[in-house]
């Protein structure tokens, strides 16, 4: 059985970097796939990888991670300013981060607007889920 756990932004916003990573890895190590609203900061992503490497053992082989987020480049200036203002006030809730155990997720393929999640199936053929 494949378990997807949604983590809303409100669950993460009050946590510091270490607590966020601990929470994400805790879920992933229970063999669930996290779908988190928003994105980690770049430094948090590298810290997550670092912590993952430290915790690798015979049962936990690492993670697959993927973020998708809307591109701002073609947005009008006024809309951009509005968006930045709301980000400042409410936090950056744009996009989504998917993290799962590498023993469950075989591969994540992404392009800017689409994610393809390949999981290991019982007959070890690739099974595909699309978002």
């Amino acid at each position, binding site marked *: 059985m494949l378990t997807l756990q949604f983590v809303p932004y409100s669950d993460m916003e009050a946590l510091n970097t270490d607590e966020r990573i601990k929470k994400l890895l805790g879920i992933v190590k229970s063999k669930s796939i996290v779908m988190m609203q928003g994105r980690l900061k*770049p430094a948090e992503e590298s810290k997550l*990888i670092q912590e993952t490497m430290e915790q*690798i053992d015979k049962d936990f082989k690492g993670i697959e991670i993927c973020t998708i987020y809307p591109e701002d480049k073609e947005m009008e200036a006024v809309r951009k300013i509005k968006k930045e203002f709301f980000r400042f006030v409410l936090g950056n809730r744009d996009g989504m981060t998917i993290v799962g155990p590498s023993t469950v997720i075989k591969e*994540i*393929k*992404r392009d800017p607007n689409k994610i393809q999640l390949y999981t290991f199936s019982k007959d070890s053929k690739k099974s595909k889920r699309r978002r």
Partner: protein
Amino acid sequence: MLKLITEYLQSFFSQLFGSKKKIKLGFYGAPNAGKSTLANRICKDWVGEELSTVSKIPHETRNINIKESVTVKHKGKELTFNVVDTPGIATKIDYEDFLKFMNKSEAKVRAKEATKGVIESIKWLDNMDGVVVVLDSTLNPYSQVNITVIGNLAARKIPVLLAANKIDMKKGSVKKVEAAFPQYKVVGISAEKGTNMEEFYSSLFKIFK
């Protein structure tokens, strides 16, 4: 004649005062993207000897390797780099992936060393003056490793050059890399064959002028 005298005086004074700035240039990217092959190519081109061992087995480089004082010359100018070849970044390491190349106990040791190598690579990010992110141009460039490395460098304001490696291969595509990271300078190269290295060096000089 005047040029020779100028070069001699520059060299004399820089040696006398030790004022030559060395740029710490890191090589990052996913395993088997060609980081060590490129670092070797640069070292071989300018100091005549290689830096790291290269193989088809993933995570061949598991320690930080440094070649100091690699002076690169281009159009009458020169830059001196400390070339830092890193194990690169991975999000997963499974000893079973190495079993087709070695026995179980060797594979477990290699996996353990590889995890430490990734941790070292991340720690070294803060020490770099500039980074060449090496991408395998035959693969999808939208990998999270590439995105995380480039995002971290941008957040640290570290100058970045993207090397789309393996352009000599049939599936190699510089355009895909350029489309994925339009805000960065991308140079298509084959580190193994030395293809397009002139443009690579030219881009290095543009970034570190």
